[in-house]
């Protein structure tokens, strides 16, 4: 079935946005409760590797996702513990963790068999979506032919948007991020919310990594996340910390990457460096074009909350 150019570019855009979406939602949730998660990159890498490892060993892709979730829970707990218990700079902890997880995943990866055919996953998570609906021209395969993990993260974004504004727990989470002391006196357990949010954040980032190895390519390569975690942080920034803004920003980056490929493939004589620059230039343009009040950074973002013991 021959697909149109728009179809293929948009489809590629959605595929390439998905890792950003996972990591960005994770970063968003964490920041909402007042803790910077700068370890998104490392967590994504960890999820990519451990998701792949569990899937390879068990032969089951869902066990792979479980593996990624497990890594997310552990690394999220670690970040939460250090940030909350010790109240030290979350940025440096995040940076340290990125290096640490790069080392751990590379190390474990090298312990395994080195044959490229032995170490490939036999099958990948397929795209889901009703076949008939996919045949609708232009938007059919775009909307209905995506991967299940892509649908999942979009649903999660919607759920988060509703949760953070319309539910009591959501408002409590925001209060924790704005003014933890006041929240505490209002009876909200600040620590518990922060732990939960940071762990969830790490789980999401790890799943974003698992998306790469379980649905897109069937292998792991050292440092294969290649800066996606940082793009996710940029997307949160560009989206001014709102769920919709962040989601759209992630799509912008994915779209820009697809456009970048297209520019190269059209062989127009443009140096490839310009093509690779496209996502970054587009994001600055987007930032300048969308003005207005931001959802606002939580007032206590980054500030450690140390309860007197």
């Amino acid at each position, binding site marked *: 079935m021959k697909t149109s150019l728009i179809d293929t570019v948009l489809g590629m855009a959605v595929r390439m946005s998905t*890792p950003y979406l996972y990591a960005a939602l994770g970063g968003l949730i964490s920041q909402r409760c007042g803790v910077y998660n700068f370890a998104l990159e490392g967590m994504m890498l960890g999820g990519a590797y451990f998701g792949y490892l569990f899937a390879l060993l068990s032969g089951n892709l869902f066990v792979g996702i479980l593996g990624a979730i497990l890594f997310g829970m552990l690394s999220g707990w670690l970040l939460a513990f250090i940030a909350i218990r010790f109240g030290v700079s979350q940025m440096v902890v995040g940076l340290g963790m990125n290096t640490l997880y790069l080392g751990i995943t590379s190390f474990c990866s090298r312990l395994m068999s*080195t044959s490229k055919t032995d170490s490939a996953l036999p099958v990948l998570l397929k795209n889901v979506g009703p076949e008939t609906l996919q045949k609708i021209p232009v938007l059919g395969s775009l909307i209905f032919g995506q991967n299940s993990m892509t649908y999942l993260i979009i649903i999660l974004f919607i759920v988060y948007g509703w949760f953070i504004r319309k539910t009591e727990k959501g408002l409590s989470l925001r209060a924790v991020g704005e003014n933890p002391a006041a929240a505490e006196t209002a009876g909200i357990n600040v620590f518990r919310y922060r732990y939960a949010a940071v762990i969830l954040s790490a789980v999401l980032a790890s799943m974003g990594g698992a998306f*790469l190895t379980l649905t897109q*390519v069937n*292998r792991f390569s*050292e440092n294969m996340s*290649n800066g996606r975690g940082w793009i996710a942080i940029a997307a949160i920034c560009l989206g001014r910390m709102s769920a919709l803004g962040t989601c759209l920003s992630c799509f912008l980056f994915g779209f820009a990457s697809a456009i970048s490929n297209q520019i*190269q493939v059209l062989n127009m004589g443009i140096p*490839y460096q310009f093509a690779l620059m496209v996502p970054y230039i587009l994001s600055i343009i987007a930032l300048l074009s969308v003005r207005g009040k931001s959802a606002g950074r939580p007032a206590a973002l980054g500030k450690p909350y140390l309860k007197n013991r």
Partner: protein
Amino acid sequence: MVNLTMVALLAGCGGNSSSSSTTAAAKSAASAVATETAAASLNETVAAAASTGTGKVKVAWICEGILTDNGWNADGYKEMQELATKYNLDVSYQENVGKTEAPDVIRNYASEGYKLVIDNEQYHCEIMAEIAPEFPDVTFACVNGYVSADNMIAITGDMWQHIYLAGVMAGKVTKSNKLGLITYSTDSSSALTMLAALKAGAQSVNSSADVIHVATGSFSDLEAGKEMCTSLIDQGCDVIFCNSGDCNVTVMQTCANKKVYSIGAIVDHNDISADYVLGSAMLPPSNILKIMISGYIDGTLKGSAKPIVMGIKEGCEEFRVNPTMKGKLDQSVFDALDKATKGVEDGSIKVELPKTSK
């Protein structure tokens, strides 16, 4: 200053008589010194081995990028481990040595008693050639290096023969007349050489064939490689050649999934798909390392200011057709390949390569 084009032309067109006479000339020029130095180097080697106490020769091996790239570095690393066992060497490896760190790393090894310092990255040869004179009793070596020094061994594949043949096969097989070439960057001299060779090969059998040349900017971002490959296929390419580190394998698998032909790079990747891999354009570092180490150990290979160029005929490069293709493709494809191979080996085929210095 050795001009890359000249070197390539020497190897390809003047015929091997010319290139072997270059090496022969270099050897004979140094031969007066060679006999003493051969003996001296062997004694040195033994002495060095004795001084380390383990009886092993201390060899250093450097690469740019990671060891586990399923391609250039992985092949070199594997070979070094085998050679270490075979010749009883004490090898120290250092990976991730970029062009900015290379001077320090090379100097460090040279000053720490390593008698043979090998660099697996061709672009380090200029750096190595500058440093070599500072350590006259150390032997330096660069895989695929295109400049050399008196105490340095640079052996280079000629960089285009095997890719030319890949182009011939691709040009014969393509129906859309669009070939895809994926490299790390599009303006490095090796990338431009690959483009010229692929195009020339394809157009020699199919005048309407064209090559779309794109860059990934990464050796390990597998998803980017896969998406770039997908873009090429959507654009109409039906044969794709990727040489960008670990992305090679992923690109080839993506091609197989989408029922498009691909050609392997550097090492033999023909096992990736029985139906969709045409062949592999091979220039494995292992070939060069074997020659270097055995030549160094028995003293027959000395440093020389002129790099040694080896192509298909010398066994350094190869275009290995996928055996499974024999029954699947028209015989005319293999005939064209045989003809081209002969032309390349006897020097009647010349390719206009991009002009780069040295």
